[in-house]
């Protein structure tokens, strides 16, 4: 199974625009939808949002009216794709239920990417991030019960993703300098590394956008506070992942890579989709992306004299990004790296940070008046007599999180106490 976006034929631009009724078409059924179909919808919405924002940014930085026209034309089609995809989500799916879907995407997308990343440093970057979104899933799942949602989180995620504490959210809050990683280069990195990073950046960015917009909608102060806290972590995740991309990528090459990535992902969705109606959407959108790609490749050839065939894989792409269970994989990462934090571009166990490190100052500042991601677990214990968890593969791999998902007795807690004592 190979797919070469450079040789396939797409739909001409003048046939890409659809009517309002076509765009706001049928939704999925929130009770019947396969969890990974929901994941694909959430992911592809994020991919389209990135296509749109990247195009806007490019348009703002070019004076070439021909390029501006091409960007505007394609962008309007991307906007329609975004509407078609995001409007697949029904109004009957509550914001918190949809949020559970967002974090399931983060867990199973990032895990798949980490397992398919050829570079050891970048693999570590994904493994670092995945434990944090894993923990968000657990905190939001507990919030979901408290918000009186009729469903349990596992009814959203199926039995595909376990819901357990990861690296506790309270310890995600790091000084901004410690989110900046070493970038790869377009010249020497593997094409899969570039696609991986662009995909995860888009997903995390849309998660950030989503929480920063909907997080103030609940009335419950704890729900508002938890969204706020996790939205700040998603900002970190965007900074973390975007910093592995090559910042010197020329504008039109960057556009080509974006369109190429959209082709890879719609093809992946098409190959793996179980819902026949939604598969139709992926297929149509793939045909559109092929034309977006052709236009971008053409413009890059004319403007920069660069030939896409020279650097994109000759045989095309062979492996579709696949939403699949990563339970054992995540357990392994928990076991190996639970207590890690970041120091500039490097990842280190928290116990190895100097005691006067900026991490501890930042922690003191933001956690000063209590921490919503801790409070949500405590309140769940009070109201339900225990934490919400969903495990299918046995006890938690980390002893410090077996009984309790709050911060006490974790390696971070010990490091924090040492740091406080020396101040």
């Amino acid at each position, binding site marked *: 199974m190979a797919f070469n976006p450079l040789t396939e034929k797409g739909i001409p631009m003048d046939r890409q625009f659809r009517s309002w009724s076509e765009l706001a078409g049928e939704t999925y059924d929130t009770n019947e939808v396969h969890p990974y179909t929901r994941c694909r919808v959430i992911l592809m919405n994020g991919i389209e949002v990135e296509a749109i924002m990247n195009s806007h940014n490019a348009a703002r930085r070019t004076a070439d009216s021909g390029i501006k026209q091409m960007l505007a034309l394609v962008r309007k089609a991307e906007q329609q794709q975004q509407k078609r995809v995001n409007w697949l989500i029904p109004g009957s799916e509550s914001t918190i239920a949809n949020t559970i879907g967002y974090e399931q995407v983060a867990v199973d997308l990032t895990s798949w990417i980490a397992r398919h990343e*050829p*570079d*050891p*440093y*970048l693999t570590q970057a994904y493994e670092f991030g995945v434990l944090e979104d894993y923990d968000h899933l657990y905190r939001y799942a507990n919030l979901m019960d408290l918000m009186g949602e009729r469903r349990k989180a596992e009814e959203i995620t199926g039995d595909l993703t376990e819901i357990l504490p990861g690296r506790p959210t309270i310890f995600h809050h790091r000084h901004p*300098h410690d989110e900046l*990683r*070493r*970038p*790869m*280069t377009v*010249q*020497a*990195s*593997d094409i899969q590394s570039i696609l991986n990073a662009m995909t995860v950046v888009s997903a995390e960015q849309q998660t950030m956008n989503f929480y920063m917009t909907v997080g103030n909608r609940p009335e419950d102060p704890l729900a508002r506070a938890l969204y706020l806290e996790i939205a700040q972590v998603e900002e970190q995740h965007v900074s973390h992942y975007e910093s592995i991309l*090559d910042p*010197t990528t020329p504008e039109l090459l960057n556009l080509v890579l974006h369109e190429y990535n959209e082709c890879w992902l719609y093809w992946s969705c098409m190959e793996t989709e179980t819902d026949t109606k939604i598969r139709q959407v992926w297929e149509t959108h793939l045909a559109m992306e092929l034309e977006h790609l052709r236009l971008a490749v053409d413009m890059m050839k004319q403007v920069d004299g660069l030939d896409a065939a020279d650097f994109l894989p000759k045989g095309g792409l062979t492996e579709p990004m696949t939403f699949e269970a990563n339970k054992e994989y995540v357990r392994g990462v928990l076991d190996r790296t639970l207590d890690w934090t970041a*120091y*500039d*571009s*490097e990842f280190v166990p928290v116990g190895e940070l100097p005691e006067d490190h900026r991490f501890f100052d930042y922690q003191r500042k933001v956690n000063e008046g209590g921490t919503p991601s801790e409070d949500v677990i405590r309140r769940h214990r009070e109201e339900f007599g225990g934490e919400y968890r969903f495990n299918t593969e046995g006890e938690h791999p980390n002893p410090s999180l077996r009984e309790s998902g709050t911060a006490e007795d974790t390696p971070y807690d010990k490091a924090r106490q040492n740091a406080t004592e020396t101040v």
Partner: protein
Amino acid sequence: MMTTRDEKHTGLHHTADKVQDTIGGMHGRVKAKTLGSHSGEAFAKNAAIGDIYEITAAKMALKRTRSDRVREAARKMIDDHTTATHQLRSAHRMSETGDLPELPTEVDMRRRKWLEHLEAAPDDKFDETYLDQQVLAHKETVDLMTGYAQSGDNWQLRSFAEGTAPVVERHLAMMEKLRAAL
């Protein structure tokens, strides 16, 4: 290339040290411009040693200087060269850099001499010695980074050099300004 100043108050021993630093610095500059600038192995080694020297010298400055501005500059050197150390270490672990030898964890002979001279500087000459060395060291680092960014043999290390060059250029400007204000 070097900041020339009237040295009439400088002690004999100190003058000799300074000449050695300068020659060491010029020699380093020539080396950075030619030898080190194409080979990834030489570049990575040189960059790592430069960071260790910077951090060690700055720690000494924090202990010994009586100037707030020098102390502030020294803190910045520790922060920024720690960041550079980490970035280089990350680059070193990427498959893009291939099989480079381990990065050095100690300074070389030449920079050990610099640190010894700094250590030996009398209290009333400490800032002057530190800033003279800083100007020389950063001229060398600017050459190393800009040279490798343009013509290095490894794309990942070139990317690191490109990201670090503007930072050390600002360091150089800052150190030259501080030295001129002494």
